[in-house]
């Protein structure tokens, strides 16, 4: 019998052979890896060859649900996807809200494994009654909303279809293509859309009403009550997110000199201009209504509309903080008119707006410095501040249009390397740095350096949230001593949130204790916070192990670009840069805090202690 909270079934589909098999979920995997990110990582690691071509048939996609999904725990409706990233060559691990993750769980499976490559475009149709691989030729070339509408047509009240799809960017193997659900909620970073595209997989449609059982209702309920109460207590989850969305952070992040500008050359903004792209400005001028992912009391979604120059009204979701900052100030653009429309198009075509913005900013610097020539840009004057070009550049990248489009489609690192100046790409492990300047928080810097997916604030540890909004959790921003443990703990909190199927933003209100109660109540097993910490450490070690087996060189790749050592920013009245020595010291201490060797590798005895069996000796 399945452990309460789980259905006890794993579905594996081979798109090459069309073979479909259902296996029992290994209880040991649940106890050691929990669900979501942890479970997906374990199932992925057990099946993938580390050297597999990310865009070849041997790449493996694992989507896993969590024991909380299917309960009434706040925000517990998320899904998690693990794959080998075509952008980084290392593990891709991505989480999304919306409604798909919840419905996937209701099909009666805990995880879905996809391997192989279909001979023609297909989609997977999944419900408790049937599992089918269906032809998607009619959808190929269609954008995200069109594909979603097509796949969800035929929903019946109370038994809705939900679709997970890629857009043209995924089909064209753009290295930062996303997989979207609810049209705008995405498994975003590291190019999962390209992995789908490489498998000729247009999407996955789900429908179901399978329920989970709960072992100890009182314990579960006490945790849920506590979580909801705490979310309603903290101003950021109670009010700020709903009123202003994530872009509500823009002015606040600027206050701590952490808002990047011009491809991270500085953090200096004209405040009047900045106000024009703030969450407040979005709320005033573009917001139609706020929205929520399933079961979320926070409600950070922005449903917006913009009137175009030719009088049309375009509607969509966002922009989020990251999109606004990366397509905005990082490109020296302070005009929501352009940012919003480029964001809509990126969502429609299925592009990660963070990597896109970072890549465009890099292109702008390359162009201004003469390393990217007008011949390469088809005559486009791609300079800082050219907000009017953003939408066109989205199109060029998403369709891999010959010339500039195919360069942009590769992400900033490959673009800059092709121009002979890889140092101008603001990335770690080839993943673009999001909208928080690492010089303004050592913990955030270390998070980018050590994140398994490259420079990602969500996988690397969301230090900024604590540095500024953490309330009782506030940590020093410039402490070499405190950052390694702090970032490890923040990463672990993130790993657990991803493995429990809950939103990162709950972390503004509380860490893990209520979740420990909830998951223990649901499963009937004692998932104490100590036990959860151990699980997080295990998952981090397994992700690291995969990356090392896939060729990661910690010495060279667990670092920030030289810009962050060479060009200081001013913060709290002092020039702030992160010297190479400081990076090395923090990184070594981080490895030690993780229990890994000083070279960044988990040693044999540690792996044994973690009950991890490596592929290679």
């Amino acid at each position, binding site marked *: 019998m399945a452990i309460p909270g789980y259905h006890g079934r794993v579905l594996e589909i081979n798109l090459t052979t069309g073979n479909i098999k259902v296996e029992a979920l290994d209880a040991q995997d649940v106890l050691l890896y929990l669900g979501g990110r942890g479970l997906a990582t374990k199932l992925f690691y057990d099946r993938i060859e580390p050297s597999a071509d990310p865009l070849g048939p041997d790449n493996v996609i694992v989507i896993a649900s969590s024991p909380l999904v299917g309960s009434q725990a706040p925000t517990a409706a998320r899904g998690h996807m693990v794959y080998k990233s075509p952008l980084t060559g290392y593990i891709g691990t991505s989480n999304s809200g919306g409604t798909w993750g919840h419905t996937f769980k209701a099909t009666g499976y805990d995880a879905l494994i996809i391997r192989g490559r279909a001979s023609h475009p297909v989609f997977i149709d999944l419900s408790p009654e049937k599992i089918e691989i269906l032809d998607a030729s009619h959808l190929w070339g269609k954008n995200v909303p069109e594909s979603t509408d097509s796949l969800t047509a035929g929903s019946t009240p109370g038994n809705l279809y939900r679709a997970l799809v890629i857009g043209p960017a995924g089909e064209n193997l753009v290295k930062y293509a996303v997989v979207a659900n609810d049209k705008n909620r995405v498994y975003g970073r590291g190019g999962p859309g390209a992995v789908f595209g490489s498998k000729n997989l247009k999407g996955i449609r789900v429908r179901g009403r399978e329920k989970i059982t709960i072992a100890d209702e009182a314990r579960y309920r*006490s945790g849920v009550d506590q979580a909801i109460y705490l979310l309603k207590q903290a101003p950021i989850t109670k009010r700020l997110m709903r009123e202003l969305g994530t872009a509500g952070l823009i002015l606040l992040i600027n206050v701590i000199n952490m808002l990047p500008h011009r491809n991270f050359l500085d953090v200096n903004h004209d405040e009047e201009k900045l106000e024009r792209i703030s969450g407040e400005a979005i709320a005033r001028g573009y917001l139609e209504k706020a929205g929520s992912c399933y079961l979320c009391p926070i409600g950070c979604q922005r449903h917006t509309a913009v009137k175009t120059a030719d009088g049309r009204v375009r509607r969509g979701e966002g922009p989020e903080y990251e999109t606004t900052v990366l397509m905005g100030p990082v490109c020296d653009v302070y005009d929501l008119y352009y940012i919003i429309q480029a964001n809509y198009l990126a969502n429609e075509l299925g592009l990660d707006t963070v990597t896109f913005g970072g890549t465009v900013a890099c292109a702008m610097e390359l162009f201004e410095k003469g390393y990217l020539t007008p011949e390469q840009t088809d005559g486009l004057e791609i300079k800082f501040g050219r907000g009017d070009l953003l939408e066109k550049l989205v199109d060029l990248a998403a369709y891999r249009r010959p010339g500039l489009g195919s360069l942009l489609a590769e992400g900033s690192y490959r673009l800059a390397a092709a121009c002979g100046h890889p140092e101008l790409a603001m990335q770690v492990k080839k993943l673009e740095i999001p909208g928080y300047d690492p010089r303004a928080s050592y913990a955030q810097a270390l998070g980018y350096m050590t994140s398994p997916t490259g420079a990602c604030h969500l996988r690397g540890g969301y230090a900024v949230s*604590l540095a500024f909004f953490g309330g009782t959790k506030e940590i020093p921003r410039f402490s070499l001593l405190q950052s390694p443990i702090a970032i490890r703990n923040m990463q672990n909190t993130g790993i657990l949130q991803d493995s429990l199927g809950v939103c990162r933003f709950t972390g503004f209100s509380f860490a893990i204790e209520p979740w420990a109660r909830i998951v223990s109540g649901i499963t009937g097993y004692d998932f104490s916070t100590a036990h959860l910490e151990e699980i997080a450490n295990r998952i981090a070690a397994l992700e690291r192990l995969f990356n090392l087996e896939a060729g990661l060189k910690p010495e060279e790749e667990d670092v920030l670009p030289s810009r962050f050592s060479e060009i200081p920013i001013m913060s709290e009245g002092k020039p702030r840069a992160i010297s190479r020595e400081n990076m090395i010291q923090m990184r070594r201490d981080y490895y*030690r805090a993780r229990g890994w060797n000083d070279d960044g590798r988990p040693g044999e005895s540690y792996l044994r202690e973690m009950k991890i069996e490596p592929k290679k000796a």
Partner: protein
Amino acid sequence: MAPYKWQASEDIFRLFHSIGHASLLYDIQDSHSGNMAMRWKNAQGEEMIVITATGSQKGDLEPNHLCYLSPGETDFGYYKASSETDIHVNILSLPGAQASMHAHVKELIMATLDDQPAPKTPLPFVPVDPLAFYHLGPEIPVDWFAVPSGSPEMAKTIPARLADHPLTIIYGHGAMTRGRTLKETFFNLCLANNAGYIVRLIERQIRSTRAKRQALKTPEKQEKNLVPEAPLPVGQSPELEELRSKIKAAPESHFHFRPTPYNTDIENRCDFPEEDEILKEFRKTGNRLFESRLSPFHTGSMSVRGVDYLLYAPQASMPYEVGGPLLKLPLAPNPGDDTELLLHKKIYAESDFQALIHAYVPEAEAHAHFIYPGEETPIEKIIPVDAEGSFMYLVIPVLPPKFDEARLVSLLHDYRVVVVRGGGVWAAGGLSLSEALHHPSSVREICLYRLAALERGLDLRKMEPEKAKKW
């Protein structure tokens, strides 16, 4: 008369000023009460006694409120420098006594009041908390004086008491203490006041439930619906006296551990001056522990863990102006580590916590002794009855004085804060000291609301959320 003159020393003034101010913050003085004195050698190497001027405001001392006397000549101009100068001078002549202090430790005064006719022969005060019990002794003398301020009788009796005890109580007036430093005398007085507060809280919770307990013990009375016996007068609570005698008979089994003797050698040590942000956190947290009465002056401990070391404040409760030692120590246990430090290290060895605080929250210490009417043993968990407390914690575990340390670590993981009966409050922060600090601070409030409910005759069992009882 000797030619005395002001010999203001900036350091001495700052010390007196900060201790004076802290004593007002801790509410052990009124605006003009108390006095402080210490031995001091001036620039010429002459032995002096520095003493606060009579009637000066200890919370706002000015340089001219300090009098510099020679040990043999205590008159200062036309006045005694302090009305209690002679007492201080006699105390300072005791071996090892470098400083002395008198304060109106109100909680202790209240805890030792009695209604015997004068002349009184008060019983010594027996503390029930580990800090006062071990630092001040199992019996703190209480003396009644016909003239309880600056009298020759006091000048004789008090130094004699202080030859054998670090602190002595002047019935209805306050306490006098001696120390190796002025900070140590302040430490003693804070512990004394805290001890009185804890005893009074325990007494209040006993008295609040006494009628119910009596009723539950005598079923015949319950049947006849008789009014229970009248409450006993203060100081004569048999339950409290029983607790005191048990503690006196076997202190080791009633307290978690014997606190390390007050260390005056590391007063100004700071091992990580370059870490300005962390220093600020330590100082802010230390000040909050002190000002919010979460732990008496220079008690408790706090730490932030590095990868192979910890930053450690062994005298955690420290007002900004006074400060305390801040050490950088290896994370691995050392033979010279005291019990408290070892426990920090042990908790870190078995957890991912970033910060720990150990504080002697008096309300928690007192409430940990609470026994529900009809039950025989003290509580094992504190269930908040206030809105914020119950959502933040649902329950707060209470460990007995002796426990398996692995149990403490496991409870800290699940609850982040644990009360130890006879051992203070342990709190963990996943990321920062500030996060850890929130716990003792909340525990204090939670206990205050429960104590207030008891005093108002409310039934705690009815107020406690059902789900918390099961958790």
